[in-house]
Each structure stands twice: as structure tokens, then as C-alpha cells.
């Protein structure tokens, strides 16, 4: 904290920017590359349970959030929302297995592209 106190405003901005870039790079590097079969499996689960509200292949959502805009660095939030539910989103944790939810994340995070 003392560092910020002695810095000017410009330096502070730079520090925050550098920090965010670092966080982003860290999240990206920590992410496993998704396997094509995982993405395919995720797309099947998506079509069965998610497409009705979030739109076929994530396009034209019916009132639910646009998953094409879901931040790619918020995997944990995605997993929590799917398994425990959030607002009008019901919980799926008792219906979908953890590897199925992981596969959904693979599908959403890659935009369905292998």
C-alpha cells in the first residue's frame, strides 16, 4: 500500500493496468487447452438443457444472458452459476455431473470452436 502512496496518479494507473494484464495472462496460462471431444460433449449438453433460454449455439438468447459475452477469465463464476443457480438461472448441480459442467465451460469458453 505504501507503494501507491508515494506514486503519482499516472504511475498508479500504470500499476493497475500492469496488474490486470498480469491477472489476465495468469488466467489464460492456467487454463488447460480444451479437447475437441470435451467441446463437442459440452455442445450436446448445451443443446439439451441451455439452448432454450440462452439460444441455439449461444445465438439469439431468449431472455437469458448472452454467453458469447461471458468473461473467459471467470471460469469459477461460470461453474458456480451453473451448479448452484443465479437469479432466474436454476441450479443444475444435482442433474449434471462435474465433468459435464466442465465440458459446458469448454463449449462456452471456446465459443463452440474446436
Amino acid at each position, binding site marked *: 500500500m505504501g507503494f501507491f502512496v508515494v506514486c503519482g496518479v499516472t504511475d498508479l494507473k500504470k500499476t493497475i493496468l500492469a496488474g490486470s494484464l498480469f491477472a489476465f495472462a495468469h488466467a489464460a496460462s492456467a487454463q488447460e487447452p480444451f479437447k475437441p471431444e470435451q467441446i463437442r460433449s459440452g455442445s450436446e449438453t448445451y443443446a*439439451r438443457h441451455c439452448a*432454450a*433460454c440462452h439460444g441455439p449455439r449461444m445465438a439469439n438468447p*431468449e*431472455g*437469458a444472458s448472452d454467453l458469447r459475452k461471458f468473461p473467459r477469465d471467470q471460469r469459477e463464476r461460470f461453474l458456480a452459476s451453473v451448479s448452484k*443457480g443465479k437469479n432466474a*438461472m*436454476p*441450479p443444475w448441480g444435482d442433474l449434471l455431473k462435474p465433468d459435464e459442467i466442465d465440458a459446458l465451460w469448454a463449449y462456452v469458453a471456446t465459443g463452440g470452436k474446436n
Partner: protein
Amino acid sequence: MRKLLGTILLAAFGALAHAQTQQELLRDGNGGSTDNVLTYGMGYHQQRYSPLRQISKSTVKRLVPVWSASLANEFGEQGQPLVYNGVLYTANVKRVVAIDVATGRQLWTTALEWEPAVARVVCCGLSNRGVALYNGKVFVGSVDAHLRALDANTGKEVWKVKIAEWKEGYSITSAPTVANGVLMTGMTGGEYGVRGFVDGYDPDTGKHLWRRHTTAGPGEKGNETWPAGDAYLRGGGSTWITGSYDPELDLVYWGTSNGGPWTATARPGDNLWISSVIAFRPKTGEMVWHYQWTPAETYDFDGNNENVLADIMVGGVKRKVLMHADRNGFLYTLDRTNGKLIAANPYVNVNWAERIDLATARPVETEVAKRLRAGEKVEVRPRWTGGKNWMPMAFNPDTGRLYFAMLEETSVYQLNKELPVYKAGERYMGVENTTAPRKPGEPWGYFGALDPLTAKPKWKLPLTDLPSWSGMLATAGGLVFSGRPTGEFVAIDEDTGNIVWQFKTGSGINAQPITYTHKGRQYVTVLSGLGGGTSAKRETEGKVLPGGSVWTFALMPE
């Protein structure tokens, strides 16, 4: 002794004053006291018309909010409140609330608790469209497929029954109704392979009396319209909008939803009685007649929209009719004594059927429909959400016109090659459906005043910014009340279609306004709270925030 008798009589009278009766139900919206609103639709006929004229075209400029009360609900408000003896009863998916009409203060609230996973089987939005009142009790359904009776004075639960298993896709979003002493509820779940029904209960005890299934089973006439096997058990035909009732004919009229699965290729045949109106006896559930709006339904054209009853002139003769604006884009008038078709005309752009043939009473499907059924991807009008959805219309018996909100959208629709596999409580569709891009400048829909026999508009008000998902209320004051998803509660001149008054409420309006009197003053009440259906959220794109509240209006003194 005389004093004691007097006390007993007073107590009995007191109890009577709080125990609304069958006689009052029969007269609601039908010459009864305008202090009360006792039925879904403001009368068993569901005309949503009031003879009140205190608030009129000339006085509406003095219409102001007199109170508002939060409903602490972010899921949306679609309900129609009821009013009895100065108490307003209203419900949403989370609770029932009783409010003092004079002050807007809460008298009691009772929570409707349900497991969050229930939301998986409520296809199109967590909602509750209202309560029923009878003999000192408030009746309410909940999305986990339970029906409750609450004490009207305290909100305390008197009884509760499970009507079906939500884990198998069954839920309740509609208001119950009491007719001929029987409490009835519909259900929803047409996207989950349910078998639709209306249930009858003893309002005093909650004892189950009968079940009127809406897909014809073995041994029933109509079963021949289903393929051999058990497709009828997953055939849909849910009953998610409250039926209307003709006490003289002793017939209840209830609409039924799309088929299950959505793709009709899984269930060759007309599939009675999906996408239909069924007329049955409230005492027994015995079917008397049916009319199918969309045979072999495969478009998600639910036939649930309200059935409005009136006696109107047809070719110089007064007829007992039933009027219905279907999701499929046609406005129907039937003879409600026997279900015979009198008229059917398109009220929005329709491309799946050329017309409804009056001789056969069936739609004549177009090439678009044939290509769709053959597996091609096609553009369908109206979109699956319909030319009109659940938001109810009003009928003014003086003008003879119907007032409602129309939707103009196009879907891109294809039946999947592979038939869907049924799993209890999971989507059972077999269709891929998206929305076609809008043409620049094309209205989302209209408010309109239509002739029931021709569907010709007296006026149409284009809705260019957003469509409307709000019900209508017509009054003898020459006004029609409705709402906008952006929150404006509006009064429309019934002659011209001009909006003559509006007030911006806290959230979007997709509910059902009512009007009534209290101590000689006319009130108008509407719920505000975007949601309850998915479309309003899609269309408003985050520009309107949810949050439920009740708004009550009256004239400011001169």
C-alpha cells in the same frame, strides 16, 4: 337471551361479510357490486370490462397514483389482483399479499417456498397470475405444482395439496378458479413431455374430486388421433391459463397448450385435445365438446389464450359465443353451446395457413407449413410466441370490440431429424427455433380494437419501440387501460386508439389491470415488474430493471 342472540347474529353476519359466496362469484362483472373483483378476468366471462365511468376521457387528466407497495420480487409480475370488502389480494411466484385498498398498507403476506431447481421445469419464466377467492379462503398455485388454501383474514395455510410432481415437469403458473362450488387449477409443462390436465378439488378440504386429462387416452373418443402406443402420456396439452365459465350452460372453457414434444413428427395425427379449447362440467370434469385451433400442432402454438364469453349479434341473431385470439394468428368466434365455428380470421401476418375453412373448421396449411413438416428450415409467421400470447384481451359489450396487444415477429424454425428422447423433467422439444431479423421500421406489434367476427380493426396503434406483454381493461368511461414494458401505465381512447394519459411505474408492466370502487371512489390497480416471461427480457435488452410493486390510481379531487 335476546342480547345473546343478537351477538350470535352479529358474529354470523360478521363472518358472512368476510366469506365471499357463490352468488357473489356469479354476479362478479355481471351486475354485482363494483366494490369487488372476485374472478380472474373480472367475471366468469373474462371480459375484463367495467361499467364504471368516474374515470373517463374527460376526467382522466386528474388520474394520479394514490399508493404503491413493493412486492419484493425480481421474477416479474403477471398477476391480476382480486378485491373483496376493501382488501386487495395479489400473488407472484414468491408470495401472496393482502393489502388494505384504502391505505395501501399490507395486512398479511404468505410466502410460497419452492426449491430453486423448480425453475428448470418452468419453461418461460417464473410466474404466478393470481389467486381465487371463495368462502373465506384465498386459493393459490405454486410453481412446484402445489395448490394451497389460505385463510383470507390471516393468510395462514388451511390446506395444501401436491397436484403433480415438479420433477416430472409439472408446475402451476395460472390462477385457480371456483365454479359451481368446485376449485379448479390448470398446470404447465408442455416443454417437458407432460400429460396436460385440469384438476377439480373441494375448496373446503382440498380433497381431489376429478382430473380432466387433455390428451385422449385409450377408450376415450379422440385417442384415435394419437399414434398407437403411449405418445399421449407425454403429449403436452398443458392448461396454463385459467378457464372461463358459463353458469347457465354450466360449462367451463379451458385452453390447452402445444403438443409434446414440439415436433409433431413424433406423434402423427391431430392429437386431440392439444392446442384446443375444451368445454366440460365443473362438477365432474366430463367433456362436453372441444374445438382444436391447430390440428397436428408443431409450431408451439399453444391454444391457452383466454376464451372470452359474450352474447353478440351474428347475422342479425344474438348468439352465445366464445371469442379467442390464438397464438396461431387467427381470431376465432365459436358458438359456445356446441363448439361450432362461426368465424376465424387472421389478425396479424400469418404464413403457415391460408385460412380457416369454415366448412371443415380446419386450417388450410400453406406450402410453408408443408415444407416445415417435411423437415426444411423455414420462416414462420407468427413466431412461436404467437400473434398474441397470454396477455389477456378485453371486450366492451357496448362497442362490441375486442382490445388487445398483437405481436408481429417471424421465427426461423426447423424440426430436427432425430426425434427427442424423453427424460422426466427435461426439455422434450425436437425443434430448433430462432428469431428472424426484424425489418427496419417494422413495428413490434400493435395495440388494437378489433371486430370479433372479421378481425378488422377500428384502430391499430403501432408499437415501434417495443411490443407489449400487458393485458387490457376496458371501461364504460371510454378508456382502455394497458401497460408498456418500459413501465408506462397507459389509458387509451377506445374510439381513436390515442394514448390520452400515462404514468411511469417502477418497472415494466406485463400484468393485468383491474378497476373497482371503494367508498364511492373508482380505483385502478396494476402490477409493475418486468418478467414472468422470457420475451420481455429479450426485447428490453437490460434497459428495464425488474422489481415488483402494486400501483393504485384514482382521480385527484377537482
